[in-house]
């Protein structure tokens, strides 16, 4: 599956918002639930107190709810509870509210005189809360006092005992010993349906769930939309890149309208494009060069072959033509080899810093021996000033390619009877190799051109010696790959000097 930043971000933001809203909703719900429940319990306790105050006891211990006008007046805001039952402390029923239809409420021994809440179902099946308390005749002040003390009760009936509440039962128990002997104590339970409370809590719960879900969905949609807007520059950049690809590579992605966060990416892309363009331009120039440099000798070979075949000729003429054909072939072979050498060198990355130990003095001596015959026949003087102890930190192969080509160049261009001078010295952080020759015809203003591919001295190509026009380009590339530098100098008297600066061992 494709990875979408927009979907990912939207989902994670929506999830975070949903969790946050859920925590908020639950906290709110629990808080409100407790508030409602404690109000409900307080009201139940108050009604119980009202009922106790309304009880009429006769001398035999029978009880009934009297029409105690005083109690009614005092608690005008409240009415007497509808569901109640009174037992003796041992559970013998004394009074059952007529509304209960002879179905007894749940009897339980409260742990203390503060009373206990319990969740029950009434006979008609409605959920209700029951408050059970041990009381005694005429101690209504106690109950009421208790009710006010008992500020906060958990709706499930677990009494959160305050310091005051803990002390009270022991006091009551102490007093109770005298009273129980007089049968003044009784248990009273009052129940009230919780239907209304449950309904409002239910609706609260549903409101919260709906509100939170709606808020989550809405914020997800907003985030989706905002991300769409925020990510639009990415799309624009993508279009720009497509445009750049379609047109030529000289186009650049414009930074205008791109947010700062994406500017580094655009900059890097532009740099990459620049490098690609440079590479392509080099490639194109190279291809054009190859085309010209290879097609001309090819044309020549074809023309001479066709010419030879165009009519019957003398054997000597055939010999001359085949000789010429072969010369062109050799030229082309040399060209192709040099070309491949250069291409290989250009394709190779610069060498990582490694330890090489090449001996240029030895190599130069070897080439000097190789060309001795040719140099003598052309009466060329070779002056060598070599230092054997100077090593170069470059691979032997690269150094050999560089030295061979620069040496060949000197031999090719030196005038008959001229001088080739090769110097070696150590200069601060470099080993310097200098190859000088007399007889140079390179114009002073064109000296820097000699390292260019296929650059030749003015009429060099017309005499078909082994000039590919690549020798010095190869030298420069090989030295460059070694981490060195090349330099050229022309001096009066036709001196032409190539200087190689190479890293020392």
């Amino acid at each position, binding site marked *: 599956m494709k990875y979408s930043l927009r979907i990912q971000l939207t989902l994670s933001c929506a999830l975070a918002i949903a969790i946050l809203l859920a925590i908020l909703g639950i906290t709110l719900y629990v808080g409100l639930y407790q508030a409602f429940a404690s109000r409900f319990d307080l009201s139940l306790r108050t009604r119980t107190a009202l009922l106790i105050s309304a009880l009429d006891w006769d001398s035999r211990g029978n009880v009934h709810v009297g029409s105690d006008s005083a109690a009614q007046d005092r608690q005008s805001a409240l009415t007497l509870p509808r569901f109640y039952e009174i037992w003796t402390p041992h559970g013998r029923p004394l009074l059952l509210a007529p509304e209960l239809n002879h179905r007894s409420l749940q009897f339980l021994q409260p742990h203390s005189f503060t009373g206990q809440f319990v969740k029950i179902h009434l006979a008609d099946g409605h959920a209700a809360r029951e408050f059970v308390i041990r009381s005694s005749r005429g101690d209504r002040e106690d109950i009421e006092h208790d009710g006010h003390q008992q500020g906060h009760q958990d709706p499930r009936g677990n009494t959160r005992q305050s310091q005051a509440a803990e002390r009270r039962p022991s006091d009551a128990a102490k007093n109770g010993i005298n009273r129980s002997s007089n049968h003044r104590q009784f248990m009273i339970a009052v129940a009230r349906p919780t239907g209304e409370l449950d309904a409002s809590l239910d609706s609260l719960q549903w409101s919260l769930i709906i509100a939170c879900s709606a808020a989550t969905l809405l914020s997800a949609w907003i985030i989706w939309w905002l991300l769409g807007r925020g990510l639009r520059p990415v799309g624009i950049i993508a279009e720009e890149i497509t445009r750049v690809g379609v047109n030529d590579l000289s186009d650049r992605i414009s930074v205008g309208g791109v947010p700062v966060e994406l500017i580094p990416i655009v900059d890097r892309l532009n740099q990459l494009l620049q490098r690609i363009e440079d590479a392509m331009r080099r490639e194109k120039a190279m291809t*054009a060069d190859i*085309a*010209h*440099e*290879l*097609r*001309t*000798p*090819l*044309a*020549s*070979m*074809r*023309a*001479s072959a*066709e*010419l030879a075949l*165009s*009519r019957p000729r003398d054997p000597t003429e055939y010999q001359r033509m085949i000789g*010429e054909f072969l*010369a*062109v072939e050799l030229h082309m072979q040399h060209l192709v080899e040099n070309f491949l050498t250069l291409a290989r060198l250009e394709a190779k990355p610069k060498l990582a810093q490694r330890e090489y130990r090449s001996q240029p003095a030895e190599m130069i001596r070897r080439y000097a021996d190789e060309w001795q015959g040719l140099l003598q026949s052309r009466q060329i003087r070779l002056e060598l000033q070599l230092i054997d102890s100077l090593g170069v930190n470059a691979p032997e192969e690269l150094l050999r390619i560089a030295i061979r080509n620069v040496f060949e160049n000197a031999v090719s261009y030196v005038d008959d009877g001229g001088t080739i001078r090769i110097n070696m010295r150590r200069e601060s952080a470099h080993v310097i190799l200098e190859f000088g020759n007399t007889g140079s015809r390179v114009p002073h203003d064109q000296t820097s051109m000699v390292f260019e591919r296929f650059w*030749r001295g*003015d*009429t*060099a*190509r*017309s*005499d*078909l010696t082994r000039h590919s026009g690549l020798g010095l380009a190869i030298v420069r590339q090989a030295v460059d790959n070694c981490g060195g530098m090349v330099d050229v100098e022309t001096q009066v008297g036709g001196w032409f000097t190539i200087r190689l600066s190479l890293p020392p061992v």
Partner: protein
Amino acid sequence: MRVLLVEDFRPLRNSIAQALRELGYVVDEAGDGRAALWSLGSGQTDLVVLDIMLPGVDGFGVLKAIRAKSNAPAVLMLTAKDTVDDRVAGLDAGADDYLVKPFALEELMARVRALIRRRYQVDSATLRIGPLIMDLNARRVYRPDNGSEVLLSASEYSIFEYLAMRKGQVVSRSDIWDHTHGGDSAPESNVVDVFIGLLRKKIDAAAGCRLIHTRRGLGYVLAETE
């Protein structure tokens, strides 16, 4: 016909020059732009075969100098560049034709022939001269009514061809010499007359009437009537 061949790669220049000479052309050779411009100074060149990539003055520079001349020769460009842009650049600069290396020698020769014909406003490769037919491609002259061929030496053919190309015009001796033999040396005064004498004998005999007429003090003219 006189061709200037400008090509810096000597073996290719040698081959083309030899091929052209074997076909009877007078060939001047130049290895670079400067030499080409110097050779053009004589003003007798019919066609320049011009390489674009030259040391010194390049092919376009030479082309510009050619186009600046009156009675400019035709130019056939030779180049190793083969993109459309390169062709357009060459033709826009005023080249009459364009050939990409490597090429068939046969094709080069055909184009050379065509360009020279065009320069002399000759539409067909065969010319009718009185009762004779000259086939420019096969380089022969014959009489179609009895099928007999007029056997001419290379020099005679070249002179006859030149006269035929300029049929009806008076052609000076030096023009004839420059376009058929060339060389830097001035012609011996009577060399052309000797060749014309030999040619006239063969042609008039084959045609049965006089075709080559002498214009005293001016030169010669090839015409069916006086």
